[in-house]
């Protein structure tokens, strides 16, 4: 069964304190690993797509990396506005499937 596991479930950091969020996955025929940000009362906001091991993508203070078993979302010198729930999702091969999501990491950045 395809699985996506995110850790930690919740993380509280001081402003400027860098850290990483983990997403481990077991899926046959990966056709993309996705990172989303979700604010309370809003829909998930697309951040990155990674397709192959070794791939990296960056956007402002966020950097996503991918290996054959897991992905990391690195947050460098975070600000309070980076507080949100970060969701990881995978799409498997074989056709037009929807995304399989993890349960998310609830990130709080304290000023």
């Amino acid at each position, binding site marked *: 069964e395809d699985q996506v596991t995110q850790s930690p479930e919740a993380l509280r950091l001081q402003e400027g304190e860098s850290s990483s969020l983990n997403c481990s996955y077991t899926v046959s025929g990966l*056709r*993309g690993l*996705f990172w*989303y940000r979700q604010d309370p*009362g*809003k*829909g*998930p*906001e*697309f951040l990155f*797509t990674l397709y192959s091991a070794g791939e990296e993508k960056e956007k402002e203070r966020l950097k996503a990396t991918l290996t054959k078993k897991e992905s990391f979302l690195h947050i460098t010198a975070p600000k309070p506005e980076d507080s949100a*729930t970060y*969701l990881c*999702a995978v*799409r498997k091969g074989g*056709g*037009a*499937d*929807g*995304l*399989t*999501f993890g*349960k*998310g990491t609830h990130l709080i950045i304290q000023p």
Partner: protein
Amino acid sequence: DTAVSQTPKYLVTQMGNDKSIKCEQNLGHDTMYWYKQDSKKFLKIMFSYNNKELIINETVPNRFSPKSPDKAHLNLHINSLELGDSAVYFCASSESVYGSQHFGDGTRLSIL
């Protein structure tokens, strides 16, 4: 302009009623989806439509039926609502079946 919009934002109704949620996207995307986010915030795919054809149908009750009048719209009809249907329902769209998905802000359905 909102890319993916859902109406209504909130829906409170009695058990046993029939209701619909509407979704529209102005991105020109070919594929649209419905997801359910339960009380534990876990997002799960329900349906997707590609060029007006249903291409996946996860193990959801047949009380739920997606209907797409055109490529820009995917509505969700729910018959005989049950307490367990209470959740937030998200619509999403993507350029193709392999593109990144863009989500609406959800419809919070509460069953009394």
